[in-house]
């Protein structure tokens, strides 16, 4: 028998079960600045509210996930609490989370370390130099952390960077690789195969399981890449486990 799949939600925000013990609160089916802000702010509010039986929360680009202990709460009770919280204010107008930081991160663009700069620039209709200038002109927001530990999705890039992922996979990009697609950049925290184009390389380790604070970036942080020469990059990589990254508090 065909399962009576519930209708895809047309009304946002939506509250739906995810898995047996999870709930997903979605603010958008496509990435917008307002939906991303709403997700970040709503997650912060859920954490502050300390809803009973909520074991942990996280965000995707436009959604908030809650993992429940169904020994302490149930889906109906949690849904009601979340719907009350959703009604309490206009989340799409929310300001960004407290305690954010601006990170300045040196990166070498192009060269053999990041061989797809020219290809990506061409897809964006820019010269390689103009592409680097555009990508380093303004801070990019950490829209979410995900896929791998400490790994940020950064955006939103100008419209000419709405370039597709490549059809084939690059077999492996190194840790610290900076790759671009669909008006976003990913700064890879682990060495991995990817369909995103590898345009820059940093010496920053984003996940340090042996450190007291193993995760460098938080959702809502901003990142400004600073183009450096290959020689300068090698010097940083030799001397600084932080990859030359420096942070200042925002707001």
């Amino acid at each position: 028998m065909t399962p009576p799949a519930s209708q895809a939600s047309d009304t946002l925000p939506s509250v739906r079960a995810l898995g047996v013990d999870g709930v997903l609160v979605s603010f958008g089916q496509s990435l917008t600045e307002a939906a991303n802000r709403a997700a970040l702010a709503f997650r912060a509010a859920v954490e502050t509210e300390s809803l009973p039986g909520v074991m942990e929360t996280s965000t995707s680009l436009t959604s908030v996930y809650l993992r429940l202990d169904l020994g302490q709460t149930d889906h109906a009770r949690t849904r009601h609490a979340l719907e009350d919280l959703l009604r309490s204010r206009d989340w799409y107008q929310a300001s960004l989370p407290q305690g954010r930081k601006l990170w300045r991160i040196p990166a070498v663009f192009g060269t053999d370390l990041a061989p797809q700069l020219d290809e990506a620039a061409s897809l964006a209709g820019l010269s390689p130099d103009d592409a680097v200038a555009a990508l380093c002109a303004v801070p990019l927001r950490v829209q979410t952390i995900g896929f791998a530990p400490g790994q940020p999705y950064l955006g939103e890039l100008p419209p000419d960077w709405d370039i597709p992922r490549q059809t084939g996979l690059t077999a492996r990009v190194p840790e610290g690789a900076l790759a671009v697609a669909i008006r976003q950049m990913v700064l890879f925290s682990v060495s991995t195969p990817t369909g995103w184009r590898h345009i820059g390389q940093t010496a920053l380790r984003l996940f340090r399981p042996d450190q007291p604070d193993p995760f460098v970036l938080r959702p809502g942080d901003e990142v400004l890449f600073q183009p450096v020469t290959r020689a300068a990059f090698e010097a940083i990589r030799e001397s600084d486990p932080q990859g030359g990254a420096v942070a200042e508090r925002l707001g």
Partner: protein
Amino acid sequence: MGQIHLHRVGPGVTIQDLGRPGYLAQGLSRGGAADLLALAEGAALLGQDTQLAALEIAGSFLSVEVTEPTRIALTGAPMRATCDGAALTWQASHALPTGARLEMSASAGGYSYLHLGGGIAAERVLKARSAHLAAGIGQMLEAGDSLPLGADSGVRAGLTFTPQARFDGGALRLVETPQTALFPPDLRARFISTRFQKDTRGNRMGQRLIHQGAGFGLDAGLNILSEIIVPGDIQITGDGTPFVLLSECQTTGGYPRIGTVLPCDLPRLVQAPAGAELWFKFISLEDAVALESAEARRRAGLRGGLRPLIRDPHDIADLLAYQLVSGVTRGDELEREASC
């Protein structure tokens, strides 16, 4: 404190426990034992906490010895196990003498577990001991490694039980995901009437399934925003192949998910041998919650299902050393008799 020395170590032997809940927001999935039921069974056999770490053997082999008399339990996918050449029963606890060689080999696939009294006391990373290979935490163990053992508060060995049947494939129950409705009804109907087999391509991150006939991909061009992933999610990759995400899965992903396998059915998936048939069945969230709750109660009561391991007299080399008939027992014969 006792140690375990690893002499011969096949690929895919790692330290595993319940994993690291609480780091999803930082992009780190929980990880932990591929078969959490086997972890609970080992804890029940040894009468100890399910939090304690064990060795997970992913379909390969392992040969070890201990530096102090140590209780062990063997759970998960059955392997051939011997202690100084004498056969040991799988799904049971035993007493392992100092210096005896414990050899485990030849499983039919799936994940096997060696539990030790007091657990593996390796250093914790982010509050847990389990290796999370995808995240770069811990590593596969190698010949020559030695691991510290925790203090064992228990004494009983020589117990066995009947494990939940999960070593031959079968039906896996699903709940809908927020994306299930993106799959047209005829495609969902075909999905649940299809018999799948485990592909050889599978690991702690996920298990690919294979089947005859057309794939289950959605129309090209349907763009889905990368969304939260939970273990058990069945993502349909670009070529229409189902891929069930497991303990070390990524935390977000852009492939559509047709359903989520119930956590209590994941052991049946990870323990199915290559070639075993698997198929899916959607159930309501309400029923899934009730089933998970019942399974949690059943796991909490596993100790009630233990029974003494009765040895076949033909297997006992030194029959006279055993008091087979005795009106008076000291109560610890089981432990002593179970020594190899």
